[in-house]
Each structure stands twice: as C-alpha cells, then as structure tokens.
C-alpha cells in the first residue's frame, strides 16, 4: 500500500535580487513523502533545503512546479485556503529565537496554535502549556519566561512542543536538533519517534548530521546546488551511497570512535 502524503513535482525556486543577483535556489526537485515514512534531506549549506521547506509551508512561493498534500495542490493557494491546509503541516525552524516574538511568554506561545485553530479556549490552552513543557522534558514553571531567558536548546524544545500540540499530519523539522546537546537530542529523537506512532505523524527531517537524519527516516534525499542528486534508503545509507558527494559527506563526519 502506497499512501502518498506529500508530493513535489518539478519544483523550482529562483530568487531575483536585482543587480544580477538572481539565485536558482531550487532546481526541478521532485519527491514523494509517504504516510508514516519520514523523509530526510541532507546537503551542503546553501543548497536549498530550507527553501524547499518554506515552499511546502507556503512561506515562499514556488517559481514553477507543483506541491500536493494528499493529492490536492497546495502551492499557490490564497490565504483563507492556506489556513486549513497549514493546520496539517507544521514547521520547526533552525533558529528557535526567530519563531517566537521576544515579548511573548513561552506559555502563551505554546497555547497559541491550540487557540488559533479553535481546539481549546485560552484558559484551557494555558493549562495545556505546562503539560506540553513536560512532554519535552522541561519544567512547567518555565511557561512564564520570555524566550531570551531560555537557552537555545530549551527554546527549541518549546518550539517542537508547540508544533506537535495541534497534531498535524506532516511536521517539517529544519535543523531542529542542531542546537541541542547530544543527550537532549537523543531524547527529542526518541520523543519524535514516540509521537510519530501515537499521532501518526510523518516528518520531513532536514539536517546536516547524517547519523541523526538517518536514525529516524526511511529515505534520504541528498541535495547539492539546488538539485536532488541521490535518493537512498536510510537503513542502507553507508552501503548504498553511490554519488561521490554523498560519500564525501559520509567521510567528513567527525566521530568520537577511534
């Protein structure tokens, strides 16, 4: 059974910054994400990974090509149509500080999605905030803090908790665990695996740590210079990697093992 959740068909993105600054950030990218089968994207810094994520979530318009969610085209929707769709797609960014307004207590931020989509009223959402914090191993008392009063890693856990709070179908994680220490990262990865089973979530997991991306995905797309140059089954990444660039990525990993 092949249940398609997300499809990209020949998607490209060109940024035109004027003065000959045109950048082809994403070039003719196609891939399919199946339900409950998380997909990883790895590749060079600047190769277009975040741009793909932003196009899927409608933050950046596609220049050409189509994006489909469960068979329905979601690229090029108007704002009202977007709202329903994007309840099903949540995104966790690279920099947690950019996700929260600096003056908003994290408790309010956590309940925002629940209130926005009419799942809970403000009071219920406030109570839920404490539970969400505990879900990602933070003290419920942190709800009163402002973003800059949390460490980068703590704040990223808050952002992940909020994304998952409204039980979306697809969660895009863009370098979401890069700011976490290895033990918290491992906890978050295990948490993501648990939540995936519990809520039938599917992840699009973007990262530069190949070992981490491999650990929780079924397939990995390797990108270079705006294109997908290789798709490999995560389980056999080491044995099956064919492209030179992929091999170079694998051999550049710093290991603690001698």
């Amino acid at each position, binding site marked *: 059974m092949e249940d398609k959740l997300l499809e990209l068909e020949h998607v490209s993105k060109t*940024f035109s*910054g004027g*003065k000959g*600054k045109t*950048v082809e950030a994403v070039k003719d990218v196609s891939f399919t994400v199946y339900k409950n089968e*998380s997909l990883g994207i*790895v*590749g*060079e*810094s*600047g190769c277009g*990974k*975040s741009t793909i994520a932003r196009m899927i979530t409608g933050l950046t318009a596609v220049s050409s090509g189509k994006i489909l969610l469960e068979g329905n085209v979601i690229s090029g929707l108007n704002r009202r149509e977007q709202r329903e769709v994007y309840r099903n797609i949540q995104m966790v960014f*690279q*920099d947690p*500080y*950019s996700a929260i307004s600096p003056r908003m207590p994290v408790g309010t931020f956590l309940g925002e999605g629940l209130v926005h989509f009419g799942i809970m009223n403000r009071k219920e959402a406030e109570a839920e905030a404490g539970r969400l914090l505990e879900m990602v191993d933070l003290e419920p008392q942190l709800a009163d803090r402002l973003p800059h*009063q*949390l*460490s*980068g*890693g*703590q704040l990223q856990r808050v952002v992940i908790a909020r994304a998952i709070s409204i039980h979306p179908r697809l969660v895009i994680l863009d*370098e979401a665990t*890069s*700011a*976490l*220490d*290895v*033990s*918290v*990262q*491992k906890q978050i*990865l295990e948490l993501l*695996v648990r939540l*995936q089973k519990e809520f039938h979530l599917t992840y699009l997991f973007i990262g*530069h*740590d*190949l*070992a*981490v991306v*491999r*650990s*929780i*995905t*079924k397939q990995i797309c390797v990108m270079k210079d705006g294109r997908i140059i290789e798709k490999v089954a*995560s*389980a056999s*990444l*080491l044995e099956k990697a064919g492209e030179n660039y992929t091999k*170079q*990525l*694998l051999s*550049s*990993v*710093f*290991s*603690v*093992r*001698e």
Partner: protein
Amino acid sequence: MEEILRLEHFSVSYDGRRAVVDDVSLQIGQGEIVTIVGESGSGKSTLLHGIQGLLPSSAATKGKVLLFGQDLTKLDAAARRKMRGEQISMIFQDTGRYMNPISRIGKQYTGFLKQHMHRPEDELLALEREMLRKVNLTDTERVLSCYPFELSGGMRQRVGIAMALSLKPKLLLADEPTSALDVTVQAQVVKELAALCKKEGATIIMVTHNMGVAANISDRVGVMQNGRLSEWGTVTEVIREPKESYTKSLLSSIVELSDPQLI
C-alpha cells in the same frame, strides 16, 4: 606554556536567581583549543558571555576572569570594548540575531572592521573577500551584497565566523560555530580554526554539541552540567576515559552512522 586565561571561582546569576554558572575555576594556556560540551541550559553561553563581559544588566558575577593576569571583571565599559576588539573575538550561537536585518552584509562587515582597524576601504574589502573564501563562501560578491535574510542559516553563521577571524584575536570565543553547517563545511571551518591557533598563536574556547568535533580538535575538554564544570581534562581523559557518570551518559547518547536506526 604561557597562561592566557584563568577563571577563579567564577559565577553568574540572572535576576538574583540561583547561579547558572556556578563556581567555575580553570586555566588555559596560549595556543590551546578548548572545547566545552554539556547539557543545554547548563550555562555554556553564559560562561562565554561572562568571560567577554557581554552579559545583560540583569546578570551578576562573582569571582575573577584573568586575561594575561588582568581581572576583566574590574574593567569599565570602555576598556572592555577596546579589549573585545583587540584581544577577544566572539562567534555567537545565533549570528543572525546579532546582525542588522536591514543592512547588507558587506556594509555590516566593513563597519565592523572599521571599529577595530584603521585601513583604507579597499584593503578592508580585500580582507573580507579573503576571509569569506576561507569559510567556503566562494561567491563573495553576492554574499556581500545580500541582506541577512537572503542567506541560508549556515551561510550567515559562516559570515559571523569570517568576521571574528578577520581580527586575528588572541582569544576566540566560539559558541556553536559549526552547529548549522553541513559536515564538509564543518570540517573546513574546524580546519581554519585550528590554523588560526597554529599560525597566529591564538587560543580558542569553543562550545559545541558535536562530541566528534570535540574529540578531534581539542587540547582540553570541559563538560558542563547545571552550571558546574563537572569534568575537565585532555581528550583522552574526558572522552576516552571519562570518570563522571554525566560525561558517560553524554557519550552514550551520541548517534553514530553505524548505530541501529531509532524507528
């Protein structure tokens, strides 16, 4: 080896709460690469900001920070600013937050250099290009003409690294300098940092979550937990033969390529 930095019972607390850097003492020699690993929220960034004197006004410190024997906690704001340009440079964990969002990279870079060196503009520009190439931002003209939001996360981080390296600091404090970089670029940046130490005799204190990087480039490794420096020693002592249970648990949490998948 000549001592460059010494912390004596250094503590930092915010808003009168419990210390988040708690009684840290350590000694670092010139030319050493020191990495600090540990729990998120354990006080690593606060420690670096404290050494630099860049803490917010809600923070209070105790103890001493001695750079070449001079206690930095005793300096006034002007003396600190001067020292930051000439002796200490910092690479921030989230470079983007410290950039002006509505000013082009080139303008910010030149402005930054002008604060610290008096050289003609074309020399500054040549230096900018040279440093950007060193962190593998080869399309230097485009990068310089971009606004911060027009760069990817890893590109912004590398601009921050290039800026900090341009001043050839005696002491470089680097907070997660490679956390947003893919592994090939990470390897290159790590090589550049090591070269700075070798060629210029600089000392680096680097916070990282990447235990692999720590294991491969450090002379010394510090492990922070809950504000305290729970373990401190050479790579062999801390990473190969750790004594503390927390260090052991960190090491066992590392996800390696050859591990079984979690799903």
